[in-house]
């Protein structure tokens, strides 16, 4: 009887199609985000996150239409990240049926963007998405993580923990934290980073990047102090289903929605 820790499948969407593939038994079209979102909803996912990696304006309109179709069928929270650069981008996604938007590089270019967005739409729908990498330790030996852009290629010199604090002060209602060291490795979340940020901010933190098995999810919650765990490939390729993940977490004493 308490707030459940959330399990969030993440879909990478390009021009309205899921990329990186999803391999569910019984799905006719592995690239159809509407069908995949419905499947995750039926499995009991607590939210669904879309990362829109579409490069072109025309393709982006297709993604908006996709969000509309999903919102008409799936009645759990939807977060859309990727390409949110202006207030009108947020309005477009919310009008399409998204509940939250993830803001990433636009905040780095202009930190007040998060403040303006939260003032206009409310903190509850503004997620600050942070891509961080471990860098050389501080002079006093404490670990240091920096914000990276361009898929982890470009350092910004910004301290990730300080950035999270600042963005939450600017009005972000949640932090989506991706370890670029872990992303795609299946070696587990960066627990020290997750814990440092979760302890530093009052709002919920979603751990992302590197999950390869269910123990990683448990560790993300218990050691990383994350409020939610996000995963892509382990669900897409049916290595684990959402109910399996939840049952495993429950068996380890974590409150989940079953």
């Amino acid at each position, binding site marked *: 009887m308490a707030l*459940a820790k959330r399990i969030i499948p993440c879909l990478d969407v390009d021009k309205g199609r899921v990329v990186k593939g999803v391999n569910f038994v019984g799905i006719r079209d592995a690239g159809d985000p509407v069908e995949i979102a419905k499947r995750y909803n039926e499995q009991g996912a607590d939210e669904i996150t879309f990362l829109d990696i579409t490069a072109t304006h025309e393709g982006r309109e297709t993604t908006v239409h996709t969000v509309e179709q999903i*919102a008409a069928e799936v009645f759990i929270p939807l977060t859309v990240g990727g390409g949110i650069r202006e207030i009108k981008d947020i309005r477009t996604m919310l009008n399409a049926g998204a509940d939250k938007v993830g803001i990433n590089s636009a905040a780095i270019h202009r930190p007040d963007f998060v403040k303006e967005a939260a003032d206009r739409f409310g903190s509850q729908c503004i997620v600050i998405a942070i891509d961080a990498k471990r860098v050389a330790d501080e002079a006093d030996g404490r670990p240091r993580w920096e914000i990276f852009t361009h898929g982890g290629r470009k350092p910004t010199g910004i301290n990730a923990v300080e950035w999270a604090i600042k963005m939450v002060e600017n009005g972000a*209602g949640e932090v989506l934290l991706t370890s670029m060291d872990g992303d795609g490795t299946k070696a587990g979340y960066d627990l020290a980073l997750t814990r440092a940020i979760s302890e530093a901010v009052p709002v*919920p933190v979603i751990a992302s990047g590197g999950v390869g098995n269910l123990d990683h999810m448990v560790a993300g919650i218990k050691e990383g102090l994350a409020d*939610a765990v996000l995963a892509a490939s382990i669900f897409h390729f049916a290595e684990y289903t959402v109910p399996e993940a939840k049952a495993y977490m429950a068996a380890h004493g974590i409150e989940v929605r079953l």
Partner: protein
Amino acid sequence: MSKSSVAVIDYGMGNLHSVASALEKVGDGVKVMVTDCPDTILSADRVIFPGVGAIRDCMAELKSRGLDEVIQEVAAQKPLLGICLGMQALLESSEENGGVECLDVLPGAVKFFGSDLRDAAGGRLKVPHMGWNNVIQAIDHPLWAGIPDASRFYFVHSYYVDAPEFVAGSCDYGVQVHAALACDNVFAVQFHPEKSGDMGLRLLSNFLNWDRPAAFFPVTD
């Protein structure tokens, strides 16, 4: 003809797409009208008052459209469902934004969770209260029909309702959160039924099929 039309009040506070599409999903042909027009709202068979954002903006937007009095009139007449900020606006006052007088349709106040919220074991609780929490039903009510006690619903809020009476459901988040209130033809929920999966859809379906007690029909001359 218990579910011919439902008005969703649109006063510029947040995204009503989800509420409208959830109603269309469960409505079995119900006419869903997303509107800020007082006449349309007053002519609907039932009314949903949603909302996200800050209470000061909410009250200002309502007043600028003349909807504060419309909602008070609806509350005296026909089935009304307040959701999230819409629930909070139905109470007497809110601590948010330095203190704001609300619509005073239901007794009670809206309070801040505080910056050092703890669970019973002393663990730190994040604010906003975001995610799926168990709602303990305090009363039998037509809107809980088919919904098991302690079902989880999706919450997102930093301020919570503390009501002296009419509590229909509550949840625990460091404090006792009055997650649902019921008084005559008014029902109000802190959580988002339109984002709470099957149980949320069931609650909305129950609302569309809820006929208020006959005793509350106005006496006509």
